[in-house]
């Protein structure tokens, strides 16, 4: 289809359309917004609430930025704020793909539109909305906070516009480049993962905040800001600051840099649009990618394990951790938080090496509700389990798959945390305790999986339990945690006593490992007959999603 790039016979008429395209698209965006709100009262309420919240927040933000004007931190804060905003805009379309129908280029593919006016019109249309309004407030507040003097004021006007436009162009360019991804199953999988970005992000913000508070404020961020002020679009704000300081040359370069990046983004967006609208898409390309997908090789684990249920199940579980967005999200969140919390605590000097047990705890919880992640596909397992031995092998194989990740990870976190805490002598006991805790959690998780299974819904980012099974899920996890702690109590008591008595503690490592293995084995032995006896009940419980 060459309507976008090539010369069509009706070129004059398309030119006429192009001139009025920008207002047309803006009007289209407004009507879509209005009609969308008319559709349901729930949507209207949500829109009004979020609009009010954003307006209030924007007002406070602008006020805060203006107040910041008199302080020395203004350049640092505004530059970093601009960067964070740009990053947010870049990732937003990947995680929240729905919503902006005017900007879905595949809907415009049959219209006689030329790329340049189209980009202009789409850019203008994307200025309409709550998000852009917030960004405008932020940009205006930021430049007010740093602009001192006439030259800076003039630059500020340009810089604010550049900041907003670059953010929008960035979002559009990223979305267009990934539109195939966003409309595919992979894209929807990605959206499910967005929850973990937020979960991990909160940890970073939390620790970042504590660190700022601990080290005496913004001055730590200055070196970062010195680099970021050259990164577009934050460089636009940097330019205003440079002008205020009288560094006109530096300011001009920063402004130009932003302009160049904006132009580059628009150019790549335009190219992406042309390619998208003229190249064949998934509906016309035959399943050519089938052969592209390599035949998956048998992993190291399956070659090491004997052929049969153990290898097959372990491999399936590992594949699910990698391929199933829900499972992957849960694992990455656990891995990230399990590392961030001990390491950041150790970094702050407030934590001890014992925080490494936290990582073992986070990962140990992944054994809970083993069959829930199978969903109703658990029938395939249920039809092959006829003896307690089968159930034992099935659970053991799942455990092996988990250990492939948890054991090296626990070693890593314990090593890093101990190194940061600076006391290598406690490493053996930390590892011993961590493995004992891991073993206790694995055992509790297996028994809980057999006795209290529940469904994990496959859609929705934040839902991990089907309505009605929430209390079951929480209770099983809570009871499991309490039981695991109680099971580990003798070892903890022994550690404390050894310290008080001033005795050597290195033997806690082999003891902890042996304890963990023993407890896990007992857990397997308890869970296996219960699993074998409750197959229909487990299937019914995990099929509700």
């Amino acid at each position, binding site marked *: 289809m060459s309507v976008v790039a090539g010369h069509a016979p009706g070129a004059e008429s398309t030119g006429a359309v192009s001139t009025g395209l920008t207002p047309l698209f803006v009007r289209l965006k407004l009507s879509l917004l209005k009609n969308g709100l008319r559709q349901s009262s729930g949507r209207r309420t949500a829109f009004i609430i979020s609009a009010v919240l954003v307006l209030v927040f924007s007002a406070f933000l602008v006020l805060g930025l203006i107040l910041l004007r008199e302080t020395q931190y203004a350049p640092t804060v505004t530059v970093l704020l601009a960067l964070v905003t740009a990053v947010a805009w870049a990732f937003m379309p990947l995680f929240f793909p729905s919503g902006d129908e005017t900007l879905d280029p595949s809907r415009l593919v049959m219209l006689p539109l030329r790329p340049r006016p189209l980009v202009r019109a789409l850019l203008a249309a994307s200025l309409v909305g709550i998000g852009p309004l917030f960004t405008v407030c932020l940009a205006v507040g930021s430049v007010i906070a740093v602009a001192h003097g006439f030259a800076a004021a003039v630059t500020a006007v340009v810089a604010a516009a550049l900041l907003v436009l670059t953010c929008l162009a960035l979002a559009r360019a990223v979305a267009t480049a990934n539109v195939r991804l966003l409309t595919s199953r992979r894209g929807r999988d990605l959206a499910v993962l967005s929850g973990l970005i937020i979960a991990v992000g909160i940890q970073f913000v939390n620790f970042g905040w504590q660190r700022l508070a601990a080290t005496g404020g913004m001055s730590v961020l200055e070196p970062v800001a010195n680099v970021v002020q050259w990164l577009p679009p934050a460089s636009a704000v940097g330019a205003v600051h440079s002008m205020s300081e009288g560094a006109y040359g530096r300011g001009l370069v920063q402004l130009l840099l932003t302009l160049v990046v904006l132009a580059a983004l628009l150019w790549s967006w335009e190219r992406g649009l042309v390619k998208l609208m003229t190249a064949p898409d998934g509906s016309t390309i035959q399943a050519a990618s089938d052969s592209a997908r390599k035949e998956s090789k048998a992993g190291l684990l399956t070659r090491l394990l004997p052929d049969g249920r153990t290898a097959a199940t372990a491999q399936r579980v590992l594949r699910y951790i990698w391929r199933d967005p829900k499972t992957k999200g849960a694992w990455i969140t656990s891995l990230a938080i399990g590392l961030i919390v001990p390491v950041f605590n150790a970094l702050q000097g407030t934590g001890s090496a014992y925080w490494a047990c936290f990582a073992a705890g986070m990962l140990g919880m992944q054994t809970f509700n083993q069959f829930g992640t199978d969903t109703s*596909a658990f*029938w395939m397992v249920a039809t092959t389990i*006829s003896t307690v031995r089968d159930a034992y092998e099935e659970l053991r194989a799942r455990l092996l798959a988990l250990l492939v990740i948890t054991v090296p990870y626990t070693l890593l976190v314990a090593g890093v945390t101990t190194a940061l805490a600076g006391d290598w002598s406690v490493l053996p006991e930390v590892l011993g305790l961590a493995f004992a805790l891991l073993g206790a959690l694995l055992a509790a998780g297996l028994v809980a999986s057999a006795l209290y299974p529940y469904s994990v819904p496959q859609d929705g980012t934040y839902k991990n339990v089907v309505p009605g099974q929430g209390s079951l899920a929480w209770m099983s996890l809570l009871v499991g945690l309490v039981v695991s702690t109680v099971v580990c109590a003798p070892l903890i008591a022994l550690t404390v006593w050894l310290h008080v008595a001033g005795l050597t503690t290195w033997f806690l490592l082999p003891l902890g490992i042996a304890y963990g293995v023993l407890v896990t084995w007992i857990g397997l032995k308890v869970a296996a007959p219960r699993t074998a006896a409750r197959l*229909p009940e487990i299937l019914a419980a995990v099929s509700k999603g």
Partner: protein
Amino acid sequence: MPDQAFDKAGGAHTAPPAAVRVQGLWKRFGDQVAVAGIDLELPAGKFIGLVGPNGAGKTTTLSMVTGLLRPDHGTVHIGGHDVWADPVQVKSRIGVLPEGLRLFERLSGRELLAYSGRLRGLPGDEVDKRATQLLDVLDLAGSQHKLVVDYSTGMRKKIGLAAALLHNPEVLFLDEPFEGVDPVSAQTIRGVLERYTGSGATVVFSSHVMELVESLCDWVAVMAAGQIRAQGTLAQVRGDAPTLQNAFLELVGANGHNPGDSLDWLGGGAPR
């Protein structure tokens, strides 16, 4: 309506041993009785259709027969072995394709078969050999490395059938195997099943498409409202009725329910 059971299949001939024997099977979900005490005797080596309207209890029955749902009362024997008391003997002898339950969709078609075969305890080489042949016959070889989550309904039914056949079961239970399947895939599935029963194995499948059952099955059980209304050879169940469809409507009590009078306003000639 009283249970209108016929004599054992075959009549004059010596009856073949029952592949599946169900006695007094009950299942209740809350207040609703899904299966109300059914008795069934399904002969071995036959293509058996379990027919009935939606909500008749076909899926519940098949789930209980295959060990996926625990009955409130009653016993199920497959090849002479009790499904609930002797799962070792039963589970290796049956293949299942349930309706409304997922597969492990994040595996590719080939990986799913490899996984399923190894769970059944088959040697790896044998699994891979059989999987290759099944994928070829079921016309899935081109999509064998695609994830099952990206398969169409027909492809899912076919990969599910392949997984159910992989360990060469004696009895195959298929719940609505042709539901949502295009004619080409349906023909492929049909061909595989006919070859399978031709070798002496038993297929039990549920459906509400009478034409399909009439053309495929030599033995039929009719279910309605949780009860067996008739069972026997096709000819026995059809009786004097011109088609199985008519006999079926008669058996489930749907004949004579003519909506013509109450919808007199509907149609071109009627006043608006």
